[in-house]
């Protein structure tokens, strides 16, 4: 039988170390919903999503009750809307329907207002991307993403230039709510098709009809484990993280298998990301500080993060039959109390965060910058992240909020999105670079055939 200590260990992780399953996300293919008109497509989309995901929340809640492990978010991801509306147009109508589906199903977010333009953009895709600001302003739970680069294709700098403008417009359209629209918009390099996390989740074209992807969490559990090996060498630190990551991931694997069975969907992947929340004791930054940094942002931060990210994967891989999604430590500023504190004490800036994104998932995430930041600067920041992603063969992303009307101080988004200090960003202009357009070619090592 399971021992008393094992039962207590699991329950202690939940009660005092914030162990939870961060999200159960159902990916749903919408290809068979494409109709002869946008109206017909809308009708089919509504029927399919509400029928497939109608029991998602109830099922996840049942599993949480039976296991005693909280399941924080229940989400839906769908086939990129730019693909299913390419013939008929009317993506804004689909957006309304998706938002309504999320309300009816009771999920936290629905993702997939997405375009994949890493090599080129069709005329329609350009028009679609131009609808993003209004769409994010007029919907509540719909999330949007645009893939502008990949290792295989290089960086589509025309799309990068466009996205700087789109982010600025989105900030403007939602200026009454601290430009929150930008928190629902991610620009990717090497976007993955099975990401369960928002705002970047969409259901890829290579996926099955309905798929369950699960994102685990547990920064607090990792920190608590490291508190027991104070002063030990870094091999011990890595081993400790591996062992605890194994246990955390087993929870995710169990929940994923159980949810897919009960919802009659395929089991997709477990995403091994360490996802923080603004709650104290649920911070990735605090893990890095536990390893031995006075503050995250100090020299050594990138090395500590590389160790952490690698050890989480090594522990998680054995625990799950299919690992996927983003799978790495998240470093969102607004959603991590340790990151917020580090920015406020002047220890952490955008430049260090950029370096950190080279060794972990995902990118510059939930970073607030002055509202006056020019669109070209945002585009150039996206280009930098895309370069890190394409050259290193990893996913990188930018979710940045140029807060309209604010140049300093902080913004409060509420809930899991937290609050973010407005961070200074380089004032030197990259406008001539962005104005060139075209494509940055793929790195030579991407051509492996």
């Amino acid at each position, binding site marked *: *039988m*399971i021992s008393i200590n*094992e*039962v*207590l260990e*699991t329950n202690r992780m939940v009660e005092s170390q914030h162990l939870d399953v961060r999200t159960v996300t159902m990916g749903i293919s919408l290809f068979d919903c494409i109709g002869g008109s946008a109206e017909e497509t809308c009708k089919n989309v509504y029927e399919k999503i509400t029928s497939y995901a109608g029991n998602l929340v109830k099922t996840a809640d049942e599993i949480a009750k*039976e296991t005693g492990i909280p399941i924080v978010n229940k989400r839906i991801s769908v086939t990129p809307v730019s693909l299913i509306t390419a013939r008929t147009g009317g993506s804004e109508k689909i957006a309304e329907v998706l938002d309504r589906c999320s309300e009816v199903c009771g999920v936290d977010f629905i993702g997939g207002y997405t375009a994949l333009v890493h090599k080129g953009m069709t005329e329609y895709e350009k028009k679609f991307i131009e609808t993003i600001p209004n769409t994010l302003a007029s919907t509540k739970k719909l999330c949007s993403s645009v893939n502008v680069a990949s290792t295989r294709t290089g960086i589509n700098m025309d799309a990068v230039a466009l996205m700087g403008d789109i982010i600025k417009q989105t900030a403007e359209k939602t200026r009454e709510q601290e430009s929150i629209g930008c928190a629902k918009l991610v620009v990717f390099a090497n976007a993955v098709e099975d990401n369960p996390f928002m705002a970047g989740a969409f259901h890829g074209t290579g996926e099955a009809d309905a798929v369950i992807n699960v994102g685990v969490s547990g920064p607090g559990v990792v920190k608590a484990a490291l508190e027991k090996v104070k002063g030990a060498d870094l091999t011990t630190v890595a081993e400790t993280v591996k062992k605890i990551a194994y246990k955390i991931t*087993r929870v995710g694997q169990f929940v994923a298998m159980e949810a897919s069975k009960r919802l009659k969907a395929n089991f997709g992947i477990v995403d091994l990301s360490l996802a923080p929340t603004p709650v104290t004791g649920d911070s990735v930054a605090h893990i890095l500080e536990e390893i031995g940094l006075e503050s995250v942002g100090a020299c050594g931060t990138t090395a500590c993060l590389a160790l952490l990210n690698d050890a989480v994967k090594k522990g998680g891989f054995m625990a799950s039959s299919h690992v996927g999604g983003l799978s790495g430590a998240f470093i969102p500023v607004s959603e991590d109390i340790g990151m917020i504190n580090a920015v406020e004490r002047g220890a952490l800036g955008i430049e260090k965060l950029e370096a950190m994104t080279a060794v972990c998932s995902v990118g510059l995430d939930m970073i607030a910058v002055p509202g006056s930041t020019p669109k070209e600067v945002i585009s150039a920041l996206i280009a930098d992240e895309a370069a890190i992603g394409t050259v290193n063969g990893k996913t990188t992303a930018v979710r940045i909020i140029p807060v309209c009307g604010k140049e300093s101080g902080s913004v409060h988004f509420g809930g899991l999105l937290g609050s973010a200090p407005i961070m200074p960003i380089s004032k030197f202009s990259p406008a001539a670079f962005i104005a060139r357009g075209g494509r940055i070619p793929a790195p030579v090592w991407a051509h492996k055939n």
Partner: protein
Amino acid sequence: MKAIVSVIGTDKRGIIAKVTTALWEMNINVEDISQTIMQNYFTMIMLVDLSEANKTFDEVSSSLDEVGKSTGVEIRIQSEAIFQAMHRI
């Protein structure tokens, strides 16, 4: 379904009697018990079989919760599978 019932609280007479009576009334069989005193706390886990229970998992959980409140201990019931998944390769 197999589940683990865990009971934690200040030691006193009759805890096991009250919990097992409640389980018996719900037609739940106890397959294994492990009990100790940890840091002055009564700590017990029981492996139980819910396959012939006359109540749903939710109802069993609520009933045990009430027994816990009236006895002054914390009782919870969780699927055994989650512990097997986490602690056994």
